[in-house]
């Protein structure tokens, strides 16, 4: 009876002993890298909008408060996308000939909606509420990043559950004074000072480190 396996398969078997470990490890790493990549999470990916609205110009250079447009952020789960009337409050008078703003004028004229593209969206089984976060000292930039420096708006976090839990597990590392919540240029103090400030604020604002499922999933 002849040998079933050719001699060359010895090499295959030897390599595969080590290879199995390496291949599984590499596969795992590749999956992780893909899952964390902007290609998959949309993190730091600029979205094209019907009008190239610049937060850098409006919130940064002009210093307009976040709440001027996102009016419901303090009292609702949804921060609010401004109606065309808000845009036209100023643009009925300035940049009235700009072709870039024609979709805004058309929307106002014809009473049609501007199809803004959502930048931050959660799965439908997550019930996030803006109002509780901003009223407990979580700043806009903590989750949304340096919006006042974004020409086209991009997602600043992965929006993964681990990203949410990162703060829910240790809110003292992120909270700021309530008066600074809407400050787009807030810089948190050094790590040690932030911990000290954070512990004080967590106590003062009665921040609860909710981590059970039904906090967000209902």
């Amino acid at each position: 009876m002849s040998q079933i396996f050719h001699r060359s398969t010895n090499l295959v078997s030897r390599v595969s002993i080590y290879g199995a470990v390496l291949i599984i490890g590499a596969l795992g790493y590749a999956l992780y890298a893909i899952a964390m990549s902007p290609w998959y999470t949309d993190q730091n990916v600029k979205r094209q909008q019907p009008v190239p609205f610049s937060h850098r110009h409006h919130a940064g250079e002009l210093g307009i408060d976040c709440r001027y447009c996102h009016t419901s952020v303090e009292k609702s789960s949804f921060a609010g996308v401004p109606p065309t009337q808000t845009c036209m409050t100023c643009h009925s008078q300035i940049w009235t000939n700009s072709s870039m703003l024609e979709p805004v004028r058309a929307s106002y004229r014809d009473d049609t909606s501007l199809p803004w593209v959502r930048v931050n969206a959660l799965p439908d089984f997550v019930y996030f509420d803006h109002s509780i976060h901003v009223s407990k000292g979580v700043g806009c930039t903590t989750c949304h990043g340096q919006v006042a420096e974004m020409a086209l708006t991009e997602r600043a976090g992965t929006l993964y559950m681990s990203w949410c839990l990162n703060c829910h597990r240790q809110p003292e590392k992120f909270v700021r004074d309530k008066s600074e919540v809407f400050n787009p240029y807030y810089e948190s103090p050094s790590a040690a000072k932030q911990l000290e400030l954070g512990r004080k604020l967590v106590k003062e604002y009665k921040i609860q480190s909710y981590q059970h499922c039904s906090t967000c999933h209902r």
Partner: protein
Amino acid sequence: MKLKIDLNLGGFVRRGLGVACLSALAMLSAGCRLDMHLQPKYLPYESTDFFADGRSERQPVPGTVARGQLRVDELMFTGRENGVAASTFPFPITRADLERGRERYNIYCTPCHDYTGSGRGMIVQRGFPQPPSYHIQRLRDAPVGHFFEVMTNGFGAMYSYAARIDTADRWRIAAYIRVLQLSENATIQDVPDSERQKLSQPVASQSAGKQARESQ
């Protein structure tokens, strides 16, 4: 013979790979159902094909009065009393109301009217028609109801802010405009005796006061 074995092995490997790939695909795609991610419900402002205007949110039927939204209080909702701009507030103004008014004023009004009410805000500097200063005699004499009315209905180039600012907050802003008018036209007599000395103190302590104000 040797060649045949090699081919068989190749076939075995290929079949094995094929089975492995298929089962991996089957397992992965089983985890790819998105029906919990994309539930059959509308989130705020979500578009829809169902209605002709593409909006999932519907306008209430004209004449609808939501619970607790019956607007029978003329003073509260129009700023008028017996048809003329009211000179009283619909509710007593406390210090907390003034502070809320300042916060709301700083959000919604400063882009044009600026922090002092002079009408030289950032948007005016960028070409918006300049509104009158709050400190001219005509507006100092104007009843508070006038300011409430302007915020509610708009005036000249200014659009209505009724959709952006709650009714009570519009009254609080009107109260804060009164504060600005008072502050810009204050004299040394308006400063309490106990505070007056601070005005003549050296510059260092004044800048400390400025920092304290800014950090508030």
